[in-house]
């Protein structure tokens, strides 16, 4: 059952990622990216990461993608024109990507020791209580530094995007 769920959502994620790369219009790519993020959230749930699955849906598929779609709408971005690529790039590109994926898959499958099966419910430390305890006890300094990072990012975004007053 877990394997079937994994296969369904992995296939959906890969299909959406291929669609992201192939679509011409940015809005289509953005919606494909939402599909990838949604199916990845399901995979996180299968791996026992309840908190991180919800954060994925809220922060990534919600907030960040709304920002992307907002900018696409604001700039009225149309579909892009196809570039004339070098001949070898258009013929060798896809086989080389496939070869890279195949080599990586071979290494993971054969060079590493055989991995156990992932069972839903076997990992119990992914809930908000355990994550919060680890975050505020062990990783409290990086967490606080992150708040400064976000503050600087907000200020930078405001400075970059404001209208020039001259």
């Amino acid at each position: 059952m877990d394997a079937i769920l994994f296969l369904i959502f992995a296939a959906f994620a890969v299909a959406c990622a291929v669609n992201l790369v192939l679509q011409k219009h940015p809005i289509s790519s953005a919606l494909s990216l939402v599909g990838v993020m949604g199916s990845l959230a399901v995979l996180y749930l299968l791996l026992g990461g309840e908190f991180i699955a919800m954060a994925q849906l809220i922060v990534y598929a919600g907030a960040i993608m709304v920002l992307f779609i907002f900018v696409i709408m604001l700039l009225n971005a149309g579909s892009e024109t196809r570039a004339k690529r070098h001949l070898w790039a258009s013929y060798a590109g896809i086989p080389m990507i496939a070869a890279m994926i195949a080599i990586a898959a071979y290494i993971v499958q054969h060079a590493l020791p055989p991995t156990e099966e992932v069972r839903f419910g076997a990992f119990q430390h992914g809930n908000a209580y355990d994550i919060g305890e680890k975050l505020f006890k062990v990783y409290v300094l990086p967490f606080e530094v992150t708040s400064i990072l976000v503050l600087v990012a907000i200020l930078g975004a405001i400075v970059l995007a404001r209208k020039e007053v001259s």
Partner: protein
Amino acid sequence: MPALPQGAPLSWYLILSGILFALGVAGFLFRRNIITVFMSIELMLNAVNLSFIAFSYKLGQNDGHIFSFFVMVVAAAEAAVGLAIILTVFKNRQTLEIDEVSSLKN
């Protein structure tokens, strides 16, 4: 055909992460719209997050979850700054094609 295992092996998750990362690299290299290039970067970050969670499952600790949480926060900050830069570039040059923004080249 061998019988389907009860749960997917952990290596399948890592291979899926590799596939998504390779597709993100492909989008980053092939696409010319600056927004789509940016979305490919987000795809790569998501792929790395998946392997963080998978290794976290393997080790039985939730440190990987914390790391991918930080990756999400940094991605949010990066999206805010990056999209502001895209807005400024578009305001100054009226284009989103990355090949036409090349004033630093010569």
